[in-house]
């Protein structure tokens, strides 16, 4: 090792810098090729409109951004994505907390229940979608409902596998939060005469609010990313009633111009959602050290 920690700041050893960039090179290559470059290209492509179904492209400037981002295709897709998040996130938080609170106690055999509650981690999005596709199939399902062809229910039918599959993740995360609550706090509250319900609402939930925020963020991201559920269960139908933003982007991989605008739109949606989550919710969350 050529330089120690006491080395003069600002002076680098050529050997160390070389090693550092050798170590970083594979990651940089991947990030440039598959993250930054495609995104930069998308920004440019958004100014081209496809002519004759993608046979050639015509430069139309920022007009296409304005037209597509205010058009019904983008707003409908965004609305469906938001609806999907509304269907999956609150119930995910609620059930995850319920399962974790129920299984966070000292009973014989509680490990078995904890294993059962986390078992949906084993299913992939495709597996759970196929399971619910056939459970709620109008011809052969256990519940013979035709939600898949009902414009008002199609998106909810596609949200069911997500709700079920997220149970395991939500449970595991909230349980980890509960287990990190110091025993002394609980003991002190018990001595102060807190009942189970008051303990939960006044002590436990505020203490694990950072964990709930983390889970909330993850579930919102999953909700916006949902694709397999929609493709397998409703195929976007009926009549586009369950086409979310990601589903629309996937359909536009032939039309680079429009697809690019929708992608950039999704990027800004992600940015705004991330920003909102961390500014609004951060204030209402208790962190131990503040």
């Amino acid at each position: 090792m050529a330089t120690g920690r006491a080395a003069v700041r600002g002076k680098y050893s050529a050997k160390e810098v070389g090693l550092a960039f050798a170590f970083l090179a594979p990651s940089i290559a991947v990030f440039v090729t598959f993250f930054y470059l495609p995104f930069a290209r998308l920004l440019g492509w958004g100014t081209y409109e496809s002519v004759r179904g993608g046979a050639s492209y015509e430069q139309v400037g920022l007009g296409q951004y304005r037209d597509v981002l205010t058009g019904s295709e983008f707003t409908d897709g965004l609305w469906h994505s938001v609806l999907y998040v509304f269907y999956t996130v609150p119930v995910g938080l609620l059930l995850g907390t319920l399962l974790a609170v129920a299984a966070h106690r000292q009973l014989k055999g509680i490990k078995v229940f904890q294993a059962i509650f986390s078992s949906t981690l084993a299913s992939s999005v495709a597996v759970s979608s196929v399971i619910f596709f056939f459970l709620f199939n109008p011809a052969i399902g256990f519940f013979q409902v035709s939600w898949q062809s009902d414009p008002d229910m199609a998106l909810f039918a596609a949200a069911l596998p997500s709700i079920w599959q997220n149970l395991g993740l939500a449970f595991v995360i909230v349980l980890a939060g509960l287990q990190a609550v110091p025993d002394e706090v609980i003991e002190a509250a018990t001595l102060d005469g807190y009942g189970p319900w008051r303990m939960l609402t006044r002590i436990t939930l505020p203490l694990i609010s950072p964990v709930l925020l983390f889970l909330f963020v993850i579930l919102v991201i999953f909700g916006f990313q949902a694709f397999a559920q929609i493709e397998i269960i409703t195929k976007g139908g009926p009549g586009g009633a369950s086409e979310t933003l990601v589903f629309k982007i996937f359909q536009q991989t032939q039309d680079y111009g429009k697809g690019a605008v929708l992608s950039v739109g999704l990027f800004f949606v992600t940015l705004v959602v991330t920003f909102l989550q961390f500014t609004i919710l951060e204030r209402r969350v208790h962190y131990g050290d503040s």
Partner: protein
Amino acid sequence: MATRDVLGIADVVDAAPPPKVTFGRSSARHTWGLVGQYGFLCALSLLVLGPLFLTVIQALSPPFTYVNEGRPLHPVSVAWKDRTWFSGGPISLVVRTLVVLLLVAWLQKVASGQGWRSRTLHTPARLVAIVGGAVALALATGPVFASLRDADGNSGSVFLIAVLVVAATQVWGYLGPTRPAWISVLMAVLTGLGVVGMAVLFVGPEVWTKAWGRYSLGPAMGRSLVMALIITTLQVSTAIMSAYAFVFLRFPFKRLLFALFMATLLLPLEVTLVGNVATIRQLEWTNTMQALVLPFGATALGTFLIRQGFRGLPSEIQDATRLDGYGHVAFLTKFAVPLTRPVIAAFTVISALGAWNQYLWPRAVIESNSFNTLQIQLRQVSAGEVANANEAIASALVAAVPVVVLLIAFQRQIIRGLTAGAVK
């Protein structure tokens, strides 16, 4: 509900269902509170496992048969294979038997209340339970399968006998100094019921092997496995290398580069999908393995997690090894990586899980069905004809098996990986 009562099994006196869920802490309501808690937990388990139960029933029955019979809540017209425990290929026989051995051993370990390492299973009673249980199951399932296949009307009693035979091998292992004998017997019977029931459900019926063959799940699973292995190897090695550079090496633009690494979290695959698909098409990489794995070759999350692990190492270790003349590569491989193994293991497992479950990207860059990964194959299968839907459902359940194995084997790492960031 968050009472933290410390309760012993000896308190279980009355197993009658409670009129309502109560959580009392006074000694008079103690037992009812206990029963209520178990009842509530069982109800929640039903909620979580319910869809799975119904799906298994659907997989076992030809769909229109149970629809015509008014959808009874039990398997209908199951097609049983002509087999015993010992028929089928050697690989499936070995795997089947290993699963049973491991399951029984795990149950014995859990019942003993000790860890794997404390010579838990090296007692004669437990060895008898493990080996005897597997042998008893292998011998007892033959008549059960034969009876079910011939539909001779005795299946119920034959099944019960098999359960009792397996249970008889388990009792001795479950007996403990603090456990009443009747509880050991109950646990043994439940074990027998579970093991024989699983054998009947998952080894006896034709539908599992039929779905495997008809929808070529084997090759699809192989491709998914190769893809997951390559992605995991790439992600773990690039994450270790870049994390090492960010923590232990001095180089210009370090902060800027780190910010650019982390900023990739704002560019999820969904955003760059159109651009990446265009890249793959220009390279003429559609339907190739490199198209499936290279975009996931590096992750900001992995770099971040392992960087946290490296930063937790005491600086004395680095100073001491430097005095001993170790270079960076030797320090990385001999000290940094072994000392942060828990973090690296957690990231490895969640990276493998994520890679195996990929859907959108393979869907976008695979245009030929003969190159489908397992998840994409499932979509293909479910879009097929409805008359054989039970085989499609069976494929979905078969497709989940590798992840179940992963989940059981690496439970701790998975939970640590998933909750990294949630709890400090």
